């Protein structure tokens, strides 16, 4: 049991949601929350090992110029610490094997997918089997969506939740799998933690705009088999307080935004596990 949960929020090269993501972690009870620029990891001033919870926020890594988070993933895999032999990528894989938590949102999710951190069947965190590509609408869009939570998923972050209303803000959020067997396995292992759904959180939807990007089987977020590594396109850090809700002036809402629950679950898990 640790009381002192340590969280790192990684930023740099076009990431732009680090501030609100750090705020979410603080509200969720993490004792230490550091916004760390990737250069601080690469020059060895900071190390992933010193933290329990890694947040990969939204943004546009390298402008998403080569496809969303492609250049960012290339950096994570190939960049060395202090230009020496130690690779940042090794720190990341060690972090996963230490039983720690990673949450990627939007561009952070895209980064995880392109790195192969998700869905990581059989613990293979290095092979990409699904991708996130351009929305069917051909547009970047900022709109709120209903997400149905898979209660049978091992996902640590969504435990105890049925549905959640959050904004998407992306142009490349459509999940495509390498082949149908991948999709099937995602379903059978309950790694599809959240799906775009109707207002009642009852059924997954394929219709635009409820499904904002045409994602296969309405997938909005997936976790690895352990449930500790989780990524999603919608932004939980964008709904931390009721005034974030687009209809707060006309609906009765609890003080805390629903997005905060994901961070609380993460912090509570770490408190128990470490």
């Amino acid at each position, binding site marked *: 049991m640790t009381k002192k949960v340590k969280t790192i929020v990684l*930023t*740099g*090269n*076009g990431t*732009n*949601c680090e*501030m*609100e993501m750090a*705020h979410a972690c603080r509200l969720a009870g993490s004792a230490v929350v550091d916004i760390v*620029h990737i*250069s601080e990891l690469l*020059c060895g001033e900071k190390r992933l090992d010193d933290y329990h919870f890694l947040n990969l926020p*939204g*943004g*546009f890594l*390298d*402008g*998403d*110029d*080569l*496809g969303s988070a*492609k*250049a960012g*993933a*290339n*950096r994570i895999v*190939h*960049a060395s610490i202090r230009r020496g032999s130690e690779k940042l990528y090794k720190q990341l894989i060690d972090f996963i094997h230490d039983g720690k938590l990673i949450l990627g949102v939007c561009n952070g999710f895209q980064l995880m997918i*392109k790195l192969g951190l998700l869905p990581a069947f059989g613990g293979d965190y290095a092979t*990409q*089997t*699904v*991708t996130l*590509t*351009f*929305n*069917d*609408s*051909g*547009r*970047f*869009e*900022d*709109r*709120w969506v209903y997400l149905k939570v898979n209660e049978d998923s091992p996902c640590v972050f969504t435990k105890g939740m049925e549905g959640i209303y959050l*904004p998407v*803000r992306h142009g490349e959020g459509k999940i*495509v*799998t*390498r082949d149908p067997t991948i999709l099937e396995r995602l379903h059978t292992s309950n790694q599809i933690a959240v799906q775009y759904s109707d207002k009642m959180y009852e059924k997954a939807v394929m219709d635009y705009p409820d499904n904002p990007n*045409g994602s296969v089987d309405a997938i909005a977020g997936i976790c690895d088999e352990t449930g500790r590594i989780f990524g999603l396109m919608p*932004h939980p850090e*964008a709904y*931390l307080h009721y*005034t*974030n809700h*687009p*209809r707060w*002036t*006309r609906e009765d809402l609890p003080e805390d935004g629903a997005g905060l629950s994901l961070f609380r679950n993460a912090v509570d898990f770490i408190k128990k596990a470490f």
Partner: protein
Amino acid sequence: MVHRIEVGFREGIRDVLGEKTGRKITEHLGIDVTEVKTIDVYTIEGDIAGNELAAAASGPLSDPIIQKYVTDRGLADGFDWLIEVGFRPGVTDNVGKTAREAIELLLGKPGAVDVYTSRQYALKGDLGRSDAELIASGLLANELIQRYEIIGSEEWNPAQGVAPFIPRVIINDDPTTEEIDLDVSDEELQKISSVRVLALTVDEMKIIRDHLREESVLHGRQKAGLGEKITDVEMECLAQTWSEHCKHKIFNSLITYEDQNGDRTTIDSLFSSCIKKATKEIREALGKDDWCLSVFVDNAGIIRFNDDYNLVFKVETHNSPSALDPYGGALTGIVGVNRDPFGTGKGSKLIFNTDVFCFASPFHNKPLPPRILHPRRIYDGVREGVEHGGNKSGIPTVNGCLVFDERYLGKPLVYCGTGGIMPAHIQGEATHSKTIIPGDVIIMTGGRIGKDGIHGATFSSEELNEDSPVTAVQIGDPITQKKMTDFLLIARDKNLYRAITDNGAGGLSSSIGEMATLCGGCEIDLKKAPLKYAGLQPWEILISEAQERMSLAVPPKKCKAFLALAAKMNVEATILGTFTDSGIFHVRYGEKTVAYLDMEFLHEGLPKMRLNARWTPPRHEEPAFPEPDEMGSALKEMLSRLNICSKESIVRQYDHEVQGGGVVKPMVGVVNDGPSDAAVIRPILDSFEGVVVSNGICPRYSDIDTYHMAACAIDEAVRNAIAVGGSLDRMAGIDNFCWCDPVESEKTPDGRYKLAQLVRANRALYDYTMAYGVPCISGKDSMKNDYIIGETKISIPPTLLFSTMGKIEDVRKAVTMDAKKPGDLVYILGETLEEMGGSEWFALHGFIGNTVPKVNAQKAKKLYQALSKAIDRRLVASCHDCSDGGLGVALAETAFAGGLGMDVSLSLIPREGIRRDDYLLFSESQSRFVVTVSPDSQEEFEGSMAGSVFACIGKTISGGTFRIAGIHGETIVEEAIDSLKEAWQKPLDF
């Protein structure tokens, strides 16, 4: 060696970009294509082996799940025409830069390759070569910055593919400084000015010539190694500094104004006597409660937010570049204005963007004059440029609007604004002012310098003409800028620099030139400046407006730490020289002096222009058309007007929620699709103090009287802010004047009238900012929004954008415009007069009219204060500003945004002089709101509004019927809210 990697989608994977391109080809050009497929091409030059090429292609450059690639052959097949579009030499290639960095990291070979990108469009369809040509030149490529190649299927050899093309800039690297002889005829002087795009008049050239003849000047120059003649570096530097764009010559001129009665007055600087004067008087009246901190002196204005933080705001225009290259122009516009608040005081973190665009109709269907792009292309390009600039910078775009008028065909207006927040103190020092101490080191950081953006400042000081230079167009790079701002915010908080400013118009010449006024001089070496490619002349280095650069004054003992932090964060930073107190703007190239200009002459040497203005009120035909039989259809027709209809498709493509502080979003209501009046954000996430952002703009009224146009723009901005819960207690304004050339000349025979229009607008600005106590804290003017080629001249209607930024103490009290509950009472606040002049209703019938809306500021202020109080006491369920399209539109929007019907009677509306239902519904009288109030709050609400004009005119009802009874009691509108909403949503749904 040169290689090509081509990346396309696998079979069965949707090519969304291709599909979208296909739709655009049909929508824009009316050409039907069966299929468009896209292929990304990376042309790689450098030392790279075959297996390395494959590693790059299969690694960072393609997605293994959905894409396939080939190297050194063609990927396209099964097309009728293949069009490849790439950049011209020297144009910013952001993707190419990212690809280069990725490949170098992958291979562990820094500096090994250069990468240039292009894109192929493989078209299928019954198309001839001329169709392909039209698609390439009319849609896919902008030939100013791009080149294209067209290949027919019969000439295609996939084994060979398209031959590599390297758009490398190859210039003879021979830096020289030319001397220019100004002892020549007037004709010659004029020629020098126009050939070099200096935009200087003969008189201004003569002032420079005479200055150089002064004994002391000559002596100083000779000591520095210069001769009697001026150098091209000096000439260009003076031209930038003295340009209309930088110097605001018209706003600072001495104007003789003659009114319609022949009475003359003299105005010594509109800027001083109207804009600055009002701010000064408002601040004096506030006394010790003055919340303005820095006005007009810096890149942006600064006000106090609370004891710990200040707010910063600036709005800019980027019209001329956007006319030539809408995407690049608008992108540069937004990332450019970002640097203004970023480079204000000690620097601020950017918290919101605003955007206002003025275009001709995207459905324009008449022939286009030369060099003018179709308004639909401008619309799409500008929208996308601002999308990329704003979204990629992680700054929410929270407020804006679109204005349509035929005359924006000649020049579109692209207003971009940015707000920032800064700690009030850093290490005990106030952050809102700038100081520089002689000896401070001059450092430039961020991007590199190229030929892009040369002559932006002088080019925008002229009308768009045949010779408008291509180099003035550039493409912004939001990620390079983001990396730089990430670095500089850390440097700021560590107090590693003393002062900061941005490199915008005029480049280093302006940024260092202006900073040097704070200490009295500088000395820089242009040879040290990092370049994108070799071959720039010293004058080009000095005035290039290449983007993403900031200039800083760094105390010598902090230099090492500053540079080390930059290196760690992978941001380029270069020492260019030192600030001095020599009184000289001293520029060297290596050891050789290339400019040696007296600071006082540079900044104060330009005498005031003297201009004449004459006001003759225009008379327009007074319309005569009957009241419509079908008021419901009329209302729907109004809701479908371009200036009124929903802008949701644009709004949703901008991230308006990043940074997590959105409170009142641009789209609100029961299904998030009603039009907000203003934005409210919470910049500090653990506080409920908020920022209110709004704008007002109504150029149609300029056709009648710019005085009332300006008054209405100010009133609209203020009442929009009031509508969401803002208050007059702390609201600051930004004025952006976009005018057509108001200087009488051969090209502008009606200059006196246009200048009178400017005078009148400024007088209104003084009167109304004073009346409301809303001081302008910064602003900008753009005075040459004309198009002249051949016989065609198009001048924009005089346009003032008034933007406000204010404070709301508790965002939890903000209100939105959507009706909330059935049975709520519907109120009209303010009086409706027969003010149809310049209205959308008249415009719909092809008239302008004469009775322009007038603002009664005293009454309005009282109403606004009462309403703010009522909102603060939570008595208001919804509040909607009444503007374009009048009450009819505001009532309908309130109803359908709330998903509720409405039952109201026009006979109850407080009014004067109106006898027609259509006039009552569509008059654009100012200072009015549609408010809904719960019956429980009726008494309190009416009590709190006592003393202002208001009336309850009906109520909201469940079900979706929108019913209006006319003045005489009969039902004149009975429509389903869904059909009203559909009319409102349909026009711009693309």
